[in-house]
């Protein structure tokens, strides 16, 4: 992937597929590191499954295609000397408490660090595609922060869906303005 924001879009689609109705996309960065975490309340993965999912070449799956999303994200982190961790609770064992959190640590000054890229576009794309999910996005940059919470927007919007074009444009400008305000590029 050319930008980490594309990995984020891809990883968040896993959460959508897992049936989550709340998904948090949290970024935290300083001069040296960037931590990306995507947390959902979807169906979760068993420990057994978790082991296989991180390594495309060590899979027990035979009947289905090997996924590349998580391995690619993991590689992007590891090539900066960072790492990726997954914690997950299955629906079977944890019922209402189920869910998955994927956290990746990146060293920004490493020569193999991939730029974050157009994160606003990723967030807007996620909301447009799944307007019924409760999205919570927060990006902390040193002491500043940028974010949006779709439940807050919904309380103002009432019946108007989040994928209404004017609403989508508003969200895009809302985030861009916050980034401009703190001089982030």
């Amino acid at each position, binding site marked *: 992937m050319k930008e980490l924001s594309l990995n984020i879009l891809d990883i968040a689609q896993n959460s959508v597929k897992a049936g989550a109705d709340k998904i948090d996309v949290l970024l935290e960065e300083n001069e040296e590191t960037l931590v990306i975490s995507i947390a959902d309340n979807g169906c979760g993965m068993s420990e057994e499954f978790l082991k296989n999912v991180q390594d495309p070449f060590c899979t027990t799956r035979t009947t289905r295609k090997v996924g590349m999303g998580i391995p690619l994200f993991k590689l992007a982190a590891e090539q900066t000397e960072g790492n990726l961790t997954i914690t997950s609770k299955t629906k079977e064992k944890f019922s209402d408490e189920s869910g998955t959190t994927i956290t990746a640590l990146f060293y920004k000054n490493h020569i193999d660090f991939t730029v974050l890229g157009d994160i606003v576009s990723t967030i807007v794309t996620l909301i447009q595609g799944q307007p019924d999910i409760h999205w919570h996005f927060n990006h902390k940059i040193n002491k500043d922060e940028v974010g949006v919470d779709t439940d807050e927007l919904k309380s103002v919007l009432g019946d108007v869906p989040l994928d209404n074009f004017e*609403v*989508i444009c508003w969200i895009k400008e809302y985030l861009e303005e916050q980034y401009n305000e703190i001089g982030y590029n």
Partner: protein
Amino acid sequence: MKSLAELAAIREKMQNKVVIRDGSSEIRVVVGMATCGIAAGARPVLNAFVEGVNEAGLADKVAVTQTGCIGVCQFEPIVEVFEAGKEKVTYAHMDAEKVKRVIQEHLKNGKPVAEYAITNV
């Protein structure tokens, strides 16, 4: 500064408009957004459709949606266009420029862009 008051204004405006959107748009545009699609450039393609469809005044007629893997990675970004009573049209190797033409010629004027379309997938 953007404010929630602007969202409230959008809501107001929508309420005064007779809404005929009942999930039955005449045309459905589906963009493949699995790993291979995203890596190949599906995000700007999706956004070009969302913007272009609205700019062309087709919002009530065309729904732009996302899906997982369409299954032919080497043709990504792939876009499928479904229209009641017509055969599905599949576009391969899409980009934002090509989207403009598809909106104008296919979605607006009803003539698929044969040049970008692939058959038998």
